[in-house]
């Protein structure tokens, strides 16, 4: 398992999310749509699908907590909880299946949707926001979903090669050991 590479790539996603991404958004969009990049989440979902749920859980908790810490505004644990849980659940539903492009993307979209609704639910529960769900869905969750799916599509081939490649390596090792 190529742990250091995976960690580095996720870290790169995390850095890009906060520092490179804001430049890419056209300034005319501000006020019309609030787009949140979830590149790390996409990475974690791919890990869940092409590697396993435990790895996804650990990476989700780790990078979610990093995000909680760096952009600490209201409370800790929101993103680590949501990312960890979603990574685990997606991994669980893919436990013994092989995945195609369509299946992967539809699960990514579902997980994105669930992530957005989970964040809203948590912030609503702790009284941080009182915006109506429809507003959040239209202005934040759906636009972000499209953008993040696009990102998922772009990294699909390299991510699959990277993650399945390491899996094949592992199987080869096991075979040679056995």
């Amino acid at each position, binding site marked *: 398992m190529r742990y250091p590479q995976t960690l580095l790539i996720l*870290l790169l996603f*995390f*850095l*890009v*999310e*906060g*520092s*490179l*991404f*804001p*430049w*890419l958004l056209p*300034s005319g969009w*501000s*006020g019309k749509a*609030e*787009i*949140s*990049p*979830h590149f790390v989440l996409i990475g974690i979902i791919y890990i869940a699908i092409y590697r396993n749920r435990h790895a996804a859980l650990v990476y989700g908790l780790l990078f979610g907590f*990093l*995000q909680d*810490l*760096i*952009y*600490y*505004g*209201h*409370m*800790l*644990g*929101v*993103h*680590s*909880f949501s990312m*960890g*849980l979603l990574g685990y659940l997606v991994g*669980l539903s893919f436990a013994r299946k092989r995945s195609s492009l369509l299946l992967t993307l539809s699960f990514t979209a579902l997980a994105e949707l669930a992530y957005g609704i989970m*964040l*809203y639910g*948590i*912030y609503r529960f*702790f*009284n*941080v*926001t*009182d*915006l109506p769900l429809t*507003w*959040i869905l239209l*202005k*934040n969750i759906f636009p972000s979903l499209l953008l993040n799916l696009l990102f998922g599509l772009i990294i699909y081939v390299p991510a699959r090669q990277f993650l399945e490649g390491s899996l094949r390596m592992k199987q080869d090792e096991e075979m040679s050991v056995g």
Partner: protein
Amino acid sequence: MYALFKFMGSKRLFVLLIGVILAVALMGLTLGKREKMTWLEMFASDTVSFAQSLFYKPAGYIAGFFGDIGNLRDIYEENKVLKKRLMDYAKDTARLNALEKQNRELLDALSFTEKQKQENHYVWHVAEAVAVSPDPVYNTTIRINLGSKDGIRENMAVATVDGLIGRIDRVAPFYSTVQLISDILYKDVDFKIDTSKAIAATVKGKDSFGMIESYDNESGYLIMDKIPESDQIAAGDTIITSGLGGVFPAGVVIGTVVSKREGDFGIAYKAYIKPAARFKPGQAIFVIEKPQP
């Protein structure tokens, strides 16, 4: 549902439940203001922000390059406006010099103490953003490249050339977090009264009073509350900080009044204010330091 439980096994379900409980407990415990950052948090946030700054700057150059090509046509117009502004600036400077001299003489005549004279001498620190929170609706924070080593303290006002954009939230040695006004005032009141970060505001040129207490995400307007009934505030007025709250310095532009209406209990009035400044990547950011009492 039963099949799911069976599939997950009771042990895993147990672990999952414990995880949920721990997460909710963590969120609940850290909700609101914590006193100080731990050294681990400081180290982590400084390191990550350093890495972020490595991305942010080159991205800015590239974005600026493409932006310049796109903006060539606008530059002519912009140049005209800037020349006009420069003229205004020269005019203002001349007026300021005269007023400052007069003010000094008056202060001397009324024998103000040295402390009182220094009260309005703010220090402006120039900062640059290094990262923007990817959670733009609920948690609108940005990170800037000044920290406690540069003399930044919590709660200092943060502005751009257009006006107030937020306040310093947490400070690490080299980087700190800015909470934008779209988040600052929001709902903190419900949990602890003393963490509420309402901004005491007034109208430029009038003797008004009001507290900016919340931000309406749907319309993008700030809501100014507690305006006395007799107040002369009207649509189109420029709202500035009054400095009465003690946290924000006086005289920083906040925005313009859009409308005024009766408040919830019919005693005080409410005004809707369009913020003058909105954070955009690439803008210079100023942290305004108030002299320590």
